[in-house]
């Protein structure tokens, strides 16, 4: 991704800079955003750990930006360039404090293209860091990709304030709970801080401001947790068992689902595309009418806990864990589906 970007971007009027480390990269993009650019950074494994402080900074300062993480096996240096899906909780909770982010999980090169556009658009709409959570398989996969004409790509522009500087308050939320943007150099003389701040953007470290600000940072994402959650479903109408998966695992699960249907098991597919905010309402609604959820993922249990929480005991939840290094065998997922159907 970086190599392609470095070769292409100087021919289309952008800048690629290779920073000294991931700590730097993850905050350089945010300086660029406040200078008026759209910006992103890319990493894998330990680099993602180094970026955590600045994911919190982006959440707190409502800086729209995109982080791409091609997940590999961990912990620590782990399995360089072998697949895993074990950073899903880190993406959600890795920085200290309470905050919300968006995470998208493509399962094909085409989706890597399409969802990166979505990621930028959502980051502008909600003013949060958006994480593209690939895994090594999807990251290195070669498949046909259709790139639409530029005019056909919907791009969400940054919502700059139209208020004059005297009236503008940089962190005053609008109707959608998201404040309007501003950029350096336009005469607004605004202030941005990672400290708890009031609507002017000034540090205001007290219980009331903290409550108002931090709740809003989470609440503004609610539309994505509910109606607007991105997912792909199949065969849910008559399903007894639903396989909840994402990324490369969803493609292995597809095979397992076929095999299950061939055996007459009514199995359905629920593929998480926006994994965070977690589409809890959708799962809750399904839990009322299916027997069980099967949750394969290349980790020892992460998103499965969210499924369990949303299902709230109304349906069985069966994890199919894998420590990483390769993908599941479809048979492993099939076995769980068969068990679940009984």
């Amino acid at each position: 991704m970086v190599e392609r970007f470095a070769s292409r971007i100087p021919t289309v009027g952008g800048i690629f800079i290779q920073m000294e480390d991931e700590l730097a990269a993850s905050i350089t993009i945010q300086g660029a955003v406040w200078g008026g650019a759209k910006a992103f950074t890319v990493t894998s494994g330990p680099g993602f750990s180094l970026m955590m402080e600045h994911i919190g900074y982006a959440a707190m300062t409502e800086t729209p930006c995109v982080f791409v993480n091609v997940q590999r096996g961990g912990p620590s240096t782990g399995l360089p360039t072998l697949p895993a899906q074990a950073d899903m909780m880190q993406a959600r909770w890795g920085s200290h404090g309470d905050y919300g982010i968006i995470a998208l999980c493509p399962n094909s090169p085409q989706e890597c293209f399409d969802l990166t556009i979505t990621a930028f658009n959502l980051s502008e709409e909600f003013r949060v860091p958006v994480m593209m959570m690939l895994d090594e398989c999807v990251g290195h996969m070669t498949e046909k990709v259709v790139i639409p004409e530029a005019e056909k790509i919907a791009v969400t522009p940054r919502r700059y304030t139209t208020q004059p500087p005297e009236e503008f308050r940089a962190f005053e939320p609008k109707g959608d709970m998201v404040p309007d943007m501003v950029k350096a150099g336009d005469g607004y003389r605004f202030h941005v801080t990672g400290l708890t701040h009031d609507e002017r953007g000034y540090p205001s470290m007290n219980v009331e401001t903290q409550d108002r600000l931090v709740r809003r940072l989470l609440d503004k994402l609610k539309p994505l947790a509910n109606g607007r959650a991105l997912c792909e479903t199949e065969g849910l109408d008559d399903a007894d068992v639903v396989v909840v998966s994402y990324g490369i695992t969803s493609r292995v699960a597809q095979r397992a689902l076929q095999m299950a249907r061939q055996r007459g098991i009514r199995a359905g597919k629920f593929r998480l595309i926006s994994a965070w905010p977690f589409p809890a309402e959708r799962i809750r609604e399904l839990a009322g009418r299916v027997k069980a959820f099967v949750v394969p993922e290349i980790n020892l249990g992460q998103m499965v806990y969210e499924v369990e929480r949303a299902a709230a005991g109304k349906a069985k939840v069966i994890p199919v864990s894998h420590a990483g290094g390769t993908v599941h065998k479809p048979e492993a997922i099939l076995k769980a589906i068969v068990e679940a159907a009984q």
Partner: protein
Amino acid sequence: MNEATLEIPYEIPEGARNPVEPFLRMDRMPHIWCAGCGIGTTVNCFTRALLDSKANLDKVAIVSGIGCTGRVAGYARLDSFHTTHGRAIPFATGLKLANPELQVVVYSGDGDLFAIGGNHFIHAARRNMDLKVICVNNMIYAMTGGQTAPTTPATAITATSPYGVSEPTFNLVALAEAAGASYVARWTTYHVKQLARSMEEVLKKKGFCFIEVISPCPTLYQRRNKMGDGLDAMKDYKAKSKVRNGAPTGECTLSKTGEIVVGKFVDRERPDYLELLKAQMIESLGDRYVEPEEACCSEC
């Protein structure tokens, strides 16, 4: 100060008395700094430099890290960013690249810029990124209670070196020169005129510029080391400092009680990051190179 010479091109808010007020967020006063602290003195010099440089203040941005000095950004009536500990320089790098017409000033403490942030400092200097870095060196992590910094001189007592510091101290000006800075100077808060002039110079100079300001922290450093208050620090700086413009930076190491060499040590011309980038891209890509426009995403 002589008000007649100031010619402030801005309306002074009603009731304002101090000529620096138009440069500050007066709605945030009082500030958090202790009596006798040197940070405010440096801010005074900075506002004087802004005034004298006749810079368009709408195009000056200030970026701080975390610490007592890190609070400077929050008080400056500029586009101002209070970032994370140690990362003011990479943030400023992004800001500059996205909007090259901004004059980007990094204003932070010794711990912020040279302990946790040291790696970014050397790389920004190496790239000759067009940033003006002002470091208030109070030789301590002040905000967190006076712990040892890489700049704390040997034998000094700190919260984390109760028996005295044993490590050698960092010579910041030598580091800056070796890493490639275009401009390197050091003053103390006693040298207000020289400091303001240096700040004005860097506001007019392209490339990576570095000014170290030796500044007292009476509350934590002075007190623990029985060095008196803010006024005693001024007397001390006056007695011990020696102006040696152009001095070899390698000879300018600071110690707890020794000489403080001050002056402008380096002032050289090097192409900056964006100039080098453009030259290389034109060399390799010719007509295919498209220069970055000023951020275009309000339309696209």
